[in-house]
């Protein structure tokens, strides 16, 4: 939490001015009953002669109101400035922090949670800080001020104020303390009711098919009854607050009048001062209730703040290399060595190993078993590699080790002859092109999206990449061509179009290693075939890794990696595997007719 407050220090001036002026406003408010007492004691006592005095005092009241308004506006202005500024700072810091997290933390926290932290939670904190700056000093100040004013009028009677304030605080804060967790419980239960309802709507066919309506009804009724009980419980507690505070304040007034009578009789105070004391007492209650509500908002804001600072404290889990190697330099040297590659034929000397895995195993954080075990693979310069297997067998996991999205649990992954852990992470990812399984595009033009792959790509390079990805036709077909707008998530494009653009985006940077993670599934067979051909004729001869569920996609690869349940079940060419690998045979067989 303390960490978040540092974002307020940039607005130190504002966060001091705001409460200060609030206090000033409150001070002027505290003078009001005193002025009124003067009107009664001096003005009225003088009779007809007192009228001009009363009018000037009335003028003082209006002046006090104007000063109060001015102070208040100044305070609101600076409170808003500080709160919004702090929220902006936190938002920026958290956004940056999220960009430094690795896949492991993103999996664990979940990106949708992070989105909530960035939006709703930060807004709550902003609200809380704003209210805090405006009210947190004002309310206690008025309460304290009222007690002090009472003390100045009459010491003995101010004891009543102290007692009453104590009693009120106990009740107001006691009720809050009791009801806040109860409100949370109500909300949680309400969420359950919502879930239950939504499930029943989305699953209506299944529920009816399985004849479960009765069970669902009683399940719902159970939830709903519990909700009602919890609501009534909170209601019972809250229902006590008003009556009890009313009794305390008014009993205090009874005591003030009684003691005040004695004091007036002996000449310690005047009648007008009795009226002033009664007024102060009423002010205390109003402010304490405000304070209590403020505390509710603050607790919520604090909970949000806690979640935000927890998110800020998540440490990226990939340890950085002590002396990071710049992968781009290695790649440049590698490119120079590419002269001995002739089209379609891969060389297999040890200097030409693009990727190698030695006993590499992967276990995701929180998983009970390894998702990949003992991978031993070698991919050479210019080779085309196919990776195939059932859903959930570890295909995606395997290729995610190469750009070091995850670290291996055991073993080593090497890229261009160096352990991936030795590289500067960003440079490593710059030499590996990845087309993720989910075709994600961003709001902006087609051009904007392609430039993700290479910031300074020329018009020519853009079209070249689109050619490779078999996307030229449909981009040309668009009225605005490369400048056509893509809406959020690429929703105005078909699945196949999205896939082709994501491929173009990865191809454009001409990386020595190019990975396609099942990224042509939405393309028809003919287009896919053309795509495969254009990929194998790329002028810079990348090591191409194709992940797929389709046997036809990987069939012509130089090496096919067959995975089954996280284990390597075979490596080789199509012909070799058809002889030796049972899993591969099954896959091919199952797809034969299509």
């Amino acid at each position, binding site marked *: 939490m303390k960490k978040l407050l540092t974002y307020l220090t940039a607005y130190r001036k504002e966060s001091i001015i705001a409460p200060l002026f609030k206090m000033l406003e409150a001070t002027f408010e505290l003078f009001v009953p005193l002025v009124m007492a003067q*009107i009664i004691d001096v003005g009225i006592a003088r009779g007809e002669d007192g009228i001009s005095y009363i009018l000037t005092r009335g003028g003082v009241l209006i002046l006090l109101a104007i000063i109060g308004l001015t102070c208040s506006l100044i305070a609101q202005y600076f409170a808003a400035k500080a709160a919004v500024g702090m929220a902006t700072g936190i938002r920026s810091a958290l956004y940056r922090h999220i960009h430094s997290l690795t896949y492991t933390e993103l999996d664990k926290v979940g990106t949708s949670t992070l989105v909530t932290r960035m939006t709703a939670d930060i807004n709550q904190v902003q609200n809380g800080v704003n209210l805090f700056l405006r009210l947190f000093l004002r309310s206690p100040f008025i309460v304290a001020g009222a007690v002090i004013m009472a003390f100045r009028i009459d010491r003995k009677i101010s004891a009543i104020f102290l007692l009453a304030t104590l009693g009120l605080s106990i009740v107001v804060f006691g009720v809050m303390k009791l009801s806040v967790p109860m409100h949370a419980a109500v909300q949680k239960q309400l969420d359950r009711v919502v879930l239950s309802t939504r499930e029943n709507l989305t699953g209506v*066919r299944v529920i009816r098919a399985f004849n479960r309506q009765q069970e669902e009804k009683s399940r719902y009724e159970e939830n709903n009854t519990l909700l009602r009980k919890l609501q009534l419980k909170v209601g019972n507690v809250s229902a006590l607050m008003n009556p009890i505070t009313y009794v305390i304040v008014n009993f205090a007034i009874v005591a003030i009048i009684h003691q005040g009578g004695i004091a007036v009789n002996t000449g310690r105070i005047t009648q007008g001062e009795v009226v002033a004391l009664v007024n102060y007492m009423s002010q205390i209650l109003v402010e304490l209730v405000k304070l209590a509500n403020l505390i509710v908002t603050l607790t919520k804001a604090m909970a949000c703040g806690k979640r935000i600072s927890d998110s800020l404290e998540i440490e990226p889990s990939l340890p950085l290399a002590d002396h990071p190697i710049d992968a781009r330099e290695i790649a440049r040297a590698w490119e120079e060595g590419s002269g001995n590659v002739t089209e379609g034929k891969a060389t297999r000397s040890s200097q030409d190993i693009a990727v190698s895995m030695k006993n590499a195993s992967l276990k995701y954080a929180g998983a009970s078993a390894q998702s990949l075990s003992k991978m031993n693979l070698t991919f050479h310069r210019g080779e085309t590699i196919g990776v195939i297997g059932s859903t959930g067998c570890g295909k995606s996991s395997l290729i995610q080790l190469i750009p070091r999205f995850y670290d291996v649990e055991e073993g080593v992954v090497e890229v261009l002859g160096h352990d991936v852990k030795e590289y500067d992470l960003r440079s490593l990812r710059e030499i590996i092109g990845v087309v993720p399984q989910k075709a994600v595009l961003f709001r902006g033009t087609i051009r904007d999206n392609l430039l993700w792959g290479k910031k300074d790509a020329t018009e020519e390079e853009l079209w070249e990449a689109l050619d490779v990805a078999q996307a030229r036709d449909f981009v040309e077909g668009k009225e605005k061509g490369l400048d056509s707008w893509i809406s959020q998530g690429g929703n105005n494009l078909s699945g196949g179009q999205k896939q082709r653009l994501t491929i173009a985006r990865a191809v454009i940077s001409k990386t020595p290693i190019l990975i396609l993670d099942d990224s042509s599934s939405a393309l028809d067979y003919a287009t896919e075939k053309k795509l495969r051909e254009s990929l194998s004729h790329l002028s810079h001869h990348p090591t191409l890794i194709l992940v797929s569920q389709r046997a036809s996609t990987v069939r012509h690869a130089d090496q096919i990696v067959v995975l089954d349940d996280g284990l390597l079940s075979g490596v080789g060419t199509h012909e070799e595997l058809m002889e030796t690998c049972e899993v591969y045979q099954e896959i091919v067989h199952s797809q034969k007719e299509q």
Partner: protein
Amino acid sequence: MGEIKKSVNQDTMKRIIKLLKPYWLLVVLSIVCASLVVATTLYAPILIGNAVDLIVAVGDVDFFGVVAILYRLVLVILATALFQWCMNQCNNHITYRVVSEIRTKTFAHIQGLPLSYLDAHSTGDVLNHVITDVDQFSDGLLLGFSQLFTGVVTILGTLIFMLTVNPWITLVVVILTPVSFVVASFVAKTTYQLFQQQSKVRGELTAQIDEMVGNQKVVQAFNHEGASIEEFEKVNATLQDVGHRAIFFSSITNPATRFVNSLVYAAVGVAGAYAVIRGMMSVGQLSAFLSYASQYTKPFNEISGVITELQNAFACASEVFRLLDEAEVYDRENAKDKLDESDGTVEISHLSFSYDKSRTLLTDVNISVKPGQRVAIVGPTGCGKSTLINLLMRFYDVDEGEILVDGVETRDITRHALRERFGMVLQETWLQAGTIRENIAYGKADATEEEIIEAAKLAHAHSFIRRLPQGYDTVLSENGGNLSQGQKQLLCIARVMLKLPPVLILDEATSSIDTRTEIRIQKAFNELMHGRTSFVVAHRLSTIRESDIILVMKDGNIIEQGNHEELMAQGGFYKNLYMSAM
């Protein structure tokens, strides 16, 4: 227009009153308590004023009088507190009970609604009625009860009290109070535009966050972090600017109304003091007036809010009532709830059906399925393959003709008894929040551990379940949470494997599963279906070829029917379809 709206409102009002009827005693009690609270609250300042009047100056204090008044004041205070508590309790009970009842009722009602209604309305819509509308209604009801009534009574009471004390000063209060509304509404208008601006920028920022944080993995894979942050900072700075202005302007409301209140207070003070000098009222009455002046404006500010809230509550209530008015489906009166031992014969004769009566779909369909036969339904996407399944399961009822299961016309038995015969796996997977075990045992609550595991093994789900952190006890979040689509489908299949129904319906049940696993599951299905009747919507040619009856659908109607050889010999649409897929 206005007339209709009025009658709808009256109707809603009547129904709300009907809902409240069982609680009429509490309602009456609440109203009585509220009136008493207002009366005693207004009476207290008068008593205080009277007491102050007896405390004039040194030696001029009527102690007997003061103490007598204070005794009365204590009683009034205690009575106020008691009535207030009693009123709160009544309101809580009425509101929460009524709302809870409506919720249960709507939920039960949904269970009985025909699928034609649920298919035509989005989940979000219906959910809104059951949750948000009911909630708003409850808030409105509670607020309406506790604030509107007491607010109005307070204003009236205060006016009467003030008028009896001094009409002239009352006039001062009545004239000045509306100024605070004028100020408040002026501020509200200016703020509105700023808030709209703010929400626009905020929307833009949220979209950016959604995209970049939601797809953070892609952002990182392309080293796009720098650009993403740069873009974000721009919008973030704009939001800071707009947000600051919007929040500042909106926060003017309170100080402004407070300022007006202070003016009222000063005016009452001056005018009151003048009146005291002229002997028109006493100092105590002035003190009572001062406390009224601040009390009087409060309910005004509240009431405008409460009225909007109440209008909203009414609108929500009428939405809920409209949902409750939707007709439920009922079984025939003498429908049998039990079917005798079933063999799985299905006979469809002269069946006609369409969703939209202006567009005919199935017309005069006749199908005869013997026990243990497999029926495949094929056709291009969107040709209405699921329609037949909707009719078999009686999610929809036929327009004409009949469907007989085991020789019984399906409308002569209850839907419950009919659906007991069927097991269904749909393309769209649905799982409940709960453990994997509960989900598999969904159709058979008393299944043993062995049966559950056996079903999971048959569905080829066992191996992935085993690898989950808590195995079969892994709790799934709503609709399967982070399981893959394929895994979810495997669980749905396990669920039906456990139920072992006489007739099986598979609607693209293996569409998200890789081909190799699909073939294995198909084998399991084949064993399971041995001797059972099945209806299969499929695209896999081998499945179709081996079926006993193939129904070829196009544009919502069945255009060809027969087994593979017959249809190939016919040389029609099926042959075309088959040849193009080969």
